[in-house]
C-alpha cells in the first residue's frame, strides 16, 4: 500500500500540475465556472498521498511535515480557497521530488567510488576457469586476473606478475609492478600481465569495502549544529501546530492561521546543514581524504597548531640513496649492488633499489660475508670489495683520507648515513643514504601558514641532528626530538591548556594516543598502521600532504557553507512570517518561497562538490 502510494505521488504531482495549468487557461478565456471543480480534483489528487503519509506517521505517534501540509490543504478547502489548496499540495509534492533529485547529486561522489567495485571474478576451480559473481568468491579461493581486469578480492599473488593501477587505493595512477607474494587489493586494475591471486579477504572485509563503509558512515555522522537542529525539529512541528492554533484563537482568522502553519515548515533549516556536510565529505573523498563526519569538520576548521610526526609523515619513511660520490673513473655501482643483493639490511635494500634504476642486476650467487653492525665484504671477479661504515674500514686497516673523513662527517651532521666502498685496500667512494622528505611537504606546510595556521611543530622519536635537519628543510621552527610516545602527549596537553586547537599528523602505532588526544588526529593512509587510521578523525588515503591542506581549506569552506544555509533558512522563515502577519504573503506564494528556499540551500551546498584550492 505504502509503496503504491509512493508511486502515486508522482502521478498526483504531474496530473495536479496539469489541472492547475488547465484552470489557469479557463480563467484567461473567462470560463470561470470550470475552475473550481478542476481545482478540487487537483487538491484531492495531491491530498491523498500527503494525508496518507501524515496519518501513517501519526499512528506511530509522530507529527511529520506532511501533517502540517495536510491541515493546510483541508483548511484551505474548508474556507473555499481552492487555488491555494491545490497549489500548496502541488508545490509540496513537486518540492519533495526536486529535493530527492538534487540530493541524489550530492551523493554521487560516493557512488562514483562504488562504481569502481569489481562485479565479476574468474575463479580457478579444478583447473577450469569459471566466471562467477564477486560475492561467490570464498576465502582462500584462487582467482585469475588478466590485463584490463579488476582484482576482485584482497589477497596475495601466488604466481605471475603484473602492472597494477592502484589509483583507487592510493590516488596514484602510475602503475606498480607486482609479483609472487606481493599483496593486491580489491578494486585495483591490472594494466598489463596475468596473475593468480589467493583470496585473503573477500566481500565486505576487503579494504575497498571498508573505505566505502567509512565514507558512508562519516557522511551520516552529525555535527553539533545538526544534532541541535534535530532536537529542534522534534519539537518544532507540534510547536507550529500549537502556535497557529493560538493565532486562530486570537484573530479568529482561519486563513491567517493556516498560512502561518505552512510558512513555518522547517524544510530548509533541517536540510541545510546535512547537505553542506555530505558535499564537503564527498569532495574530500574524491581527493583521497576521509573526513570522519560533520563533527570532525567542525574541529578541523578551528585548528591553530599542526604537530607532525617525522618519519613516515613528513618523510617517506623508507631510506633511499640520495647521492653517490666516486673517487675513481670506473663505475662501481653495479658491483656494489650485486654484492648488496645478499644483504637483508634496509640500507642494503636501499642501495639495490637505487642501482636497479640504471642497472640490470643478475641473481648469481657471490661469495659475500656479512658483518653485523658494520656492513659486508665479498669478491667480484676475484677482486675483494668492502662496503660499510667506518668501523668496517678500521677493522680491515683501510685508512680514510682526511677530506673524505670530513665529507662524511658533514653528511652525518645532517642526519644522513654514509656507506663507504673500498676496493681491495683503497677507498673508491661512498653512497649517501637518508630518509627522503616528501616532495610536496615544503609547499604544503607553507600553504598551511598562509591559510592562517599559527604554529607548525615537529615531534619525533628520532635524534636531534636528523630532526633539526629535516625541520630546517621544511621551514618548521619548533622541533622536539628524541621523544617517547608519552612525551608527545605531554606536549599536546600543554598546548591545549594554552587554548590552542591542536592537530596531530602521524602514521605509526606510537602516534595513536597522540592522534586520539589531539583535537583532530590525522593519519596517513598508506604508510599508516590500522590503529592510527581507526583512531584518527581524518585519514589522508594517499599520504599526500597537499591533499591534507585541501581538506583543511575544505573544512573551513564547509562550515562557512553550513552557516550560510542556516542563516538563509532562518531569514526566509522570518521574512515570510512577517509577510504573513502584515498580509503581503498568501498561502500559495508563501509555499512557493518556502520550497524555493529549500532548493537554494541544496544548490548552495552542492557548490562544495566542486571546491578546489586556488593555486
Amino acid at each position, binding site marked *: 500500500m505504502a509503496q503504491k502510494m509512493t508511486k502515486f505521488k508522482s502521478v498526483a504531482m504531474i496530473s495536479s500540475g496539469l489541472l492547475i495549468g488547465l484552470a489557469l487557461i479557463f480563467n484567461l478565456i473567462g470560463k470561470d465556472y470550470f475552475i473550481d471543480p478542476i481545482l478540487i480534483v487537483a487538491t484531492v489528487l495531491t491530498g491523498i498521498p500527503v494525508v496518507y503519509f501524515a496519518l501513517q506517521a501519526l499512528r*506511530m505517534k*509522530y507529527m511529520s511535515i506532511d501533517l502540517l501540509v495536510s491541515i493546510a490543504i483541508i483548511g484551505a478547502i474548508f474556507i473555499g480557497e481552492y487555488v491555494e489548496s491545490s497549489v500548496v499540495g502541488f508545490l509540496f509534492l513537486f518540492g519533495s521530488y526536486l529535493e*530527492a533529485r538534487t540530493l541524489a547529486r550530492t551523493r554521487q561522489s560516493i557512488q562514483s567510488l562504488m562504481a569502481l567495485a569489481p562485479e565479476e571474478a574468474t575463479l580457478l576451480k579444478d583447473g577450469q576457469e569459471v566466471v562467477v559473481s564477486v560475492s561467490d568468491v570464498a576465502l582462500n579461493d584462487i582467482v585469475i586476473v588478466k590485463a584490463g581486469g579488476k582484482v576482485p578480492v584482497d589477497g596475495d599473488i601466488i604466481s605471475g606478475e603484473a602492472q597494477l593501477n592502484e589509483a583507487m587505493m592510493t590516488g596514484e595512477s602510475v602503475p606498480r609492478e607486482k609479483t609472487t607474494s606481493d599483496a593486491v587489493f580489491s578494486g585495483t586494475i591490472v594494466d598489463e600481465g596475468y596473475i593468480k591471486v589467493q583470496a585473503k579477504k573477500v566481500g565486505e572485509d576487503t579494504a575497498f569495502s571498508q573505505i566505502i563503509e567509512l565514507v*558512508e558512515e562519516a557522511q551520516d555522522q552529525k555535527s553539533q549544529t545538526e544534532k541541535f537542529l534535530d532536537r529542534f525539529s522534534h519539537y518544532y512541528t507540534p510547536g507550529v501546530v500549537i502556535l497557529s492554533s493560538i493565532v486562530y484563537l486570537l484573530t479568529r482568522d482561519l486563513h491567517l492561521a493556516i498560512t502561518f502553519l505552512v510558512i513555518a515548515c522547517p524544510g530548509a533549516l533541517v*536540510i541545510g546543514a546535512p547537505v553542506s556536510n*555530505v558535499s564537503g565529505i564527498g569532495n574530500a573523498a574524491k581527493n583521497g581524504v576521509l573526513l570522519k563526519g560533520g563533527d570532525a569538520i567542525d574541529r578541523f576548521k578551528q585548528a591553530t597548531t599542526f604537530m607532525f610526526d617525522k618519519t613516515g609523515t613528513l618523510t617517506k619513511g623508507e631510506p633511499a640513496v640520495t647521492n653517490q660520490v666516486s673517487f675513481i673513473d670506473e663505475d662501481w655501482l653495479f658491483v656494489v649492488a650485486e654484492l648488496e643483493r645478499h644483504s637483508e639490511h634496509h640500507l642494503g635494500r636501499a642501495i639495490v633499489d637505487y642501482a636497479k634504476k640504471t642497472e640490470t642486476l643478475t641473481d648469481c650467487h657471490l661469495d659475500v660475508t656479512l658483518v653485523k653492525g658494520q656492513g659486508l665484504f665479498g669478491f667480484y671477479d676475484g677482486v675483494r670489495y668492502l662496503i660499510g661504515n667506518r668501523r668496517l674500514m678500521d677493522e680491515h686497516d683501510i685508512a680514510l683520507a682526511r677530506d673524505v673523513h670530513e665529507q662524511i662527517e658533514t653528511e652525518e651532521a645532517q642526519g644522513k648515513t654514509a656507506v663507504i666502498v673500498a676496493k681491495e685496500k683503497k677507498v673508491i667512494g661512498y653512497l649517501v643514504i637518508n630518509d627522503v622528505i616528501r616532495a610536496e611537504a615544503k609547499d604544503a606546510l607553507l600553504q598551511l601558514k598562509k591559510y592562517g595556521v599559527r604554529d607548525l611543530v615537529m615531534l619525533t622519536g628520532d635524534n636531534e641532528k636528523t630532526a633539526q635537519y629535516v625541520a630546517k628543510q621544511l621551514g618548521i621552527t619548533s622541533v622536539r626530538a628524541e621523544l617517547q610516545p608519552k612525551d608527545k602527549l605531554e606536549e599536546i596537553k600543554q598546548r591545549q591548556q594554552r587554548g590552542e586547537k591542536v592537530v596531530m599528523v602521524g602514521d605509526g602505532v606510537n602516534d595513536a594516543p597522540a592522534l586520539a588526544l589531539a583535537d583532530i588526529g590525522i593519519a596517513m593512509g598508506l604508510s599508516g598502521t590500522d590503529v592510527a587510521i581507526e583512531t584518527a578523525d581524518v585519514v589522508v588515503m594517499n599520504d599526500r600532504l597537499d591533499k591534507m591542506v585541501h581538506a583543511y581549506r575544505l573544512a573551513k569552506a564547509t562550515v562557512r557553507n553550513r552557516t550560510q544555509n542556516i542563516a538563509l533558512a532562518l531569514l526566509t522563515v522570518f521574512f515570510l512570517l512577517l509577510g504573513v502577519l502584515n498580509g503581503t504573503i498568501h498561502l500559495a506564494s508563501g509555499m512557493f518561497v518556502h520550497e524555493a528556499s529549500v532548493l537554494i540551500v541544496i544548490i548552495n551546498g552542492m557548490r562544495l562538490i566542486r571546491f578546489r584550492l586556488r593555486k
Partner: protein
Amino acid sequence: MLETIKLEQLGCPSCVKKIEVGVKQQDGVNSVDVLFNSSKVKVDFDEETITRKDIEVVIEKLGYTVKG
C-alpha cells in the same frame, strides 16, 4: 542482535525521524539509527520478541521501500 537494513534512497531528512520514531516504538527494539545519506537503518533488536521481517514491514508501512 544488530542488523542493517538497506532502503531505497531517502528523499527528505524528515523521513529519518519518521522511521526512527516508528521503529523505536516496536516491542523488542532496543535502538535505531537511521543513516540518511547512505539510506540505511541500523536496528538493535531482541530476536525473541521481534524479527527483521517485522521491522521491515513497519518501515514499508511508513512509506519506504526496503532494498533486496
